[in-house]
């Protein structure tokens, strides 16, 4: 059994040696991930995991990848995407240029979903999608735009439920069990590492999507990140969170108004 104090020691190491700050992550989830990694990589004790992390920078890469959650899917919560189609894109479409930030994008399934929406609304050519994550390796997957073919049936159903009327399979080429998404989608995606904990605002956006990322942060860090989003949104910009996340009770709640039943807020001031 791993004690809270041991986890704190490990987190301090990560910050002192590598500058990764996980100290404000939700402890229960972090602990589960660390126990899982200990058994996955067959460490006989927690001390040996800690030693390996301290001394082996290549293992650090795996460690960060595994303790952060990189599960995502295309068109998750179709009603959310329907609202983007019907309520948000028509407003963004009036702008000469559209900047969208997918913060904590993981392997990029949501970024490609967004690119498809923009393409169908005839807005892709004047849009840029910034996809950021703290893991360089997941960003490599975003760059490639290759996802498992086995998922496509479900993604196609979600796409249709989101109001999609095209043949979903026209957006990718199937090969060797993989679906490679078309390059006209990926060429509008700008990829960069960005750590929401330690990095600051880097542009002004019309829409920021950060869905199911804040759940891994404690309340204080959530507040800090929401302030970062506030600082990164232009006037009347939109912020989209996961279905169980909220701006309510946060430091920025008075500056935003929730649009509808979906977790989309508009910046009012």
């Amino acid at each position, binding site marked *: 059994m791993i004690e809270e104090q041991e986890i704190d020691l490990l987190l301090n190491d990560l910050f002192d040696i590598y500058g990764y700050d996980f100290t404000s992550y939700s*402890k229960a989830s972090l602990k589960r991930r660390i126990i899982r990694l200990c058994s996955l990589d067959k460490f006989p004790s927690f001390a040996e995991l800690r030693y390996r992390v301290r001394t082996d920078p290549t293992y650090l890469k795996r460690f960060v990848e595994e303790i952060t959650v990189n599960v995502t899917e295309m068109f998750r919560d179709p009603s959310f995407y329907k609202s983007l189609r019907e309520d948000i894109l028509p407003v963004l479409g009036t702008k000469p240029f559209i900047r969208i930030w997918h913060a904590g994008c993981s392997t990029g399934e949501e970024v490609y979903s967004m690119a498809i929406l923009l393409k169908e609304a005839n807005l892709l050519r004047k849009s840029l999608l910034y996809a950021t994550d703290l893991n360089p390796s997941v960003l490599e997957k975003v760059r490639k735009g290759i996802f498992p073919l086995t998922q496509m049936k479900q993604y196609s159903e979600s796409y249709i439920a989101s109001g999609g009327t095209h043949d979903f399979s026209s957006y990718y080429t199937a090969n060797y069990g993989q679906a490679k998404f078309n390059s006209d989608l990926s060429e509008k995606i700008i990829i960069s590492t960005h750590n929401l904990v330690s990095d600051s605002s880097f542009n002004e956006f019309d829409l920021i999507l950060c869905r199911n990322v804040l759940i891994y942060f404690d309340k204080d860090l959530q507040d800090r990140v929401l302030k970062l989003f506030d600082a990164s949104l232009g006037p009347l910009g939109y912020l989209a969170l*996961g279905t*169980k996340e909220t701006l309510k009770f946060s430091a920025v709640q008075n500056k935003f108004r929730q649009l509808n039943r979906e977790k989309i807020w508009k910046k009012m001031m």
Partner: protein
Amino acid sequence: MEKNDVTRPCGILLIGGSAGSLEVLFKLLPRLKPDLSFPIVLVLHRRSSSDSSLTDLLSSKTTNITREVDDKDPVTPGIIYLAPADYHLLLEQGHYFSLDYSEKVNFSRPSIDVTFESAADVYASSTVGILLSGANEDGTEGLIAIKKAGGRTIAQDPATAQMPFMPHHAITHSEVDHVFDLTQLAAFVNSLVGARSDR
């Protein structure tokens, strides 16, 4: 060292269920006392699309407040919480919830094991876990964790379960304290007394 069941405080009551468990809850919830002195957390396997109608349905069966958990909600006695669809539900040391969208466990998200283990970590011996009907192995590891932390574990009598596999698996692979039918379950839950010390 085992304290009498009646006087041992209950910091949190967890109820896990899969196929066939809703019917049990629909009968159990109306029999529970109003103003429960402990929180109840329901972890049910359900379709991944979030349908908040399940909360309404459960809510109609009890006078206790019933709500689906939002991220970082505090855990408050007297409230019946439902794990949201397609998230794992975790408990934090400060007695609040957090959500997690990591890989499925036992083909399930929410997984009963994940919530039970996490709650046992926080509520230790004041944890009470009940496992209802289901056709899956989920829940057994969670009950083992609760037991190990000094808490109490109950399985629905498989003979009364629409899907006996899940409680049966728990009974044969862990040491559950009690095997109860619906009437016994209701009496047991109504005999539980909240832990005041943690407030």
